[in-house]
């Protein structure tokens, strides 16, 4: 069963199409990444998913049915444009948002205290939001999104504004929530987070779907490569010229020339190694490299995106 199904979503703003015929499905229990550059339509898509915006066309099924108040109570949402009441204490802010989702007051406050304690913010529980650092306030907001123990958690750019340490902490939180059986959908323009966390991803550019599938499937679509070192002044690019490899020098290492080779047109590292041997290249290093999600994205939608 899918926690979320979107079919043919379209959203226009004053003649500009922000989301264009977008369809995707988030399987229950998955960590699902919505990837794309700034302005790709990620936030608009998520705002439609949580019922804040109505799509101009298309259909959304949330937790097996149309978007309803009851369905949304099972959803935790961290918007991209986020903030809390500056004069509220951290625990009051978390409890307030949990109560709006239907959690009884005593439970909401107990969970707020427990979550803050568990995330190293116990000492800040009764401090006003305006006295917390930006990173701490953002952590409080993440906790506010999960305090009502939703089945489906939607985070819009959750890592932006966090330092590397807190990004790592947030990754752990996401994994823990997924381990507890919750479905996670988050958007990001930083591919590394998705690569580390996601079971499935949706790549969008200019409001349109570029790819949907597993991270592995996305990486397979990107060209892999290799890093090589040749001894002395051997010119590898000239030696392998005309064999269909894209080779570029990347500098010198211990007196050796270093090269980066992009493997395209169905050629693999085995063919590259064979070509090097045939050309008599004095290899000091031969290291096949795997494509990154960023490279997969570029391969799918082009550098300009």
């Amino acid at each position: 069963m899918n926690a979320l199904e979107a079919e043919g979503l379209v959203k226009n703003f004053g003649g500009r199409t922000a989301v264009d015929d977008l369809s995707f499905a988030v399987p229950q229990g998955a960590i699902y990444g919505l990837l794309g550059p700034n302005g790709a339509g990620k936030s608009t898509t998520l705002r439609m998913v949580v019922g804040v915006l109505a799509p101009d066309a298309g259909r959304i099924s949330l937790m097996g049915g149309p978007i309803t108040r009851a369905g949304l109570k099972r959803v935790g949402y961290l918007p991209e444009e986020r903030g809390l009441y500056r004069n509220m204490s951290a625990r009051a802010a978390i409890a307030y948002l949990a109560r709006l989702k239907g959690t009884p007051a005593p439970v909401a406050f107990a969970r707020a205290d427990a979550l803050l304690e568990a995330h190293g913010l116990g000492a800040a529980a009764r401090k006003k939001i305006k006295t917390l650092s930006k990173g701490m306030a953002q952590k409080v907001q993440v906790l506010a999104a999960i305090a009502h123990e939703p089945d489906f958690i939607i985070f819009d750019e959750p890592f932006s504004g966090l330092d590397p340490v807190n990004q790592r902490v947030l990754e752990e939180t996401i994994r823990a929530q997924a381990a507890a059986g919750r479905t996670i959908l988050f958007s990001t323009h930083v591919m590394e987070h998705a690569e580390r966390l996601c079971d499935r991803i949706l790549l969008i550019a200019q409001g349109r779907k570029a790819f949907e599938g597993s991270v592995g499937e996305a990486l397979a679509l990107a060209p892999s490569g290799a890093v090589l070192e040749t001894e002395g002044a051997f010119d590898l690019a000239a030696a392998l010229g005309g064999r269909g490899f894209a080779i570029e020098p990347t500098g010198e290492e211990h007196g050796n020339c270093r090269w980066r080779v992009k493997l395209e047109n169905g050629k693999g590292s085995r063919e590259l190694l064979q070509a090097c041997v045939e050309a008599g290249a004095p290899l000091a290093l031969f290291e096949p490299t795997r494509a990154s999600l960023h490279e997969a994205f570029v391969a799918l939608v082009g550098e300009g995106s």
Partner: protein
Amino acid sequence: MIPPVLLVARREYLAYVGAWGFWASLLTAPLLLAALIFAPLLLAQAEPPRALVVLAERASDAVRVTAAYEERARADARNEVFAFLSAAAPAAKDAALVAFDSAPDRAAALEAARASVAQTAPATLGAFPNPSPRYSIVAAPANSIEALKPYLNGEQSLPDGTVLFGALNIRRDSEGAPLIEYWSVNLQHSDPADMARAVIRREMQREALAARGVSSEEADRLDALDPQIAQFDPRPGAGASAVTAREQAPFVAAAGFAFVLWMFVFSIASMLLSSVIEEKSNKVLDTLLTSVTPLEILIGKLLGVAAVSATLLLFWGALGGGLLSTAAAQMGNSTMGQAAASVLESKLALIFVLGFVAGYLMYGSIFLGLGALCDSVQEAQTLLGPVTFLLMLPMLLIGPALDNPNAPIIEAASWFPLFTPFLMVMRAPAGLSGAELAGMCALMAAAIALLFYLAARVFRAGVVNQLSVAALFRRRRNRE
């Protein structure tokens, strides 16, 4: 479990009540209002007599003017004693006034009345008035206006250290016709000249009558001729007796109520504006929107701030009621005391509450809509200009409404729902019929429904689609 709309209202209420500014307003506003009302009276009472000198080419002119001032000071003192005893010790009033009237001069009269009260109502003696005369005629330190100018300009003080307020110079031309000159740096204040004019005018008339052979006794009799004036209220149930100050007082009270209502509606509606702007700038609305609808946020805010208003009204109402009771008891027959008593007895407070609820909902809706269109307080201030102008219009009508609450322009304007809350209060003492009140309420209800509907749409566009004045300007610039 509390419904989300009430949770929003509760948060809104606690956010205001938890702020120190709320408590500051709660406590200081009544003090400021009381100061606004009572300070001028207290200041006037505390002000020392204004020193005047009278120069006259004919000695009898100076004597008559000086006597007129003494007579007025005595009459003012008698009025104060009368007002005080009417409220504080009615049983002691007659005897005290007889004692007052039998004394030769003002100081002796006050002392005689006090002595009478000491015997008949000693408990009230502590609050017995000790009024200062408004003017005192002092000996001139110089005999010409030229020589008096340093005193009049404040460059020199009188021998007892006081400042000379003004000088009356009563001259006579070659044919004996009087010319009154009034010299004072207080250019707006012409009361001393008016009083001298009345005295000299009477003297001129008496001289003219004497020249025509009318005896002094006959002149006195003619001078005493004065019709009695009585004002009546023709409305059913008003009674056959003449209108008293107590019956006139509700009109004064209504003006006060309308002014307070205007201030209250404006300041409370402004809270809604700043509340929406705060939430927009805090970016908290997107978080709320998965739990509550924009309409629920709108209603929650209106309810929350309404609860804040109710808290203020209840506190100020109780305090105001106490103050009015005190004023009614202490100020007796004065217009202020009568106004206080009539406020306590009339239905004005009820109409005030009705006007406040309607005004709050109408202007609150407008301010919420405006707030949703603004990203900053600066933007809101620029948008508030036309709304403030709209709010000022009923204020401009309060003066004319006090003079004639049934004037066609007041009647017509009172049917415009945005003005109705204020002008309804103003018209109430003049006899607002049940049908008129019902009609006005119906129109206000329709206006509230319309404004609320529009506010909800604008609010939704503002908080969901980030529609704002700045965005509209940007879009227009991009098109150009």
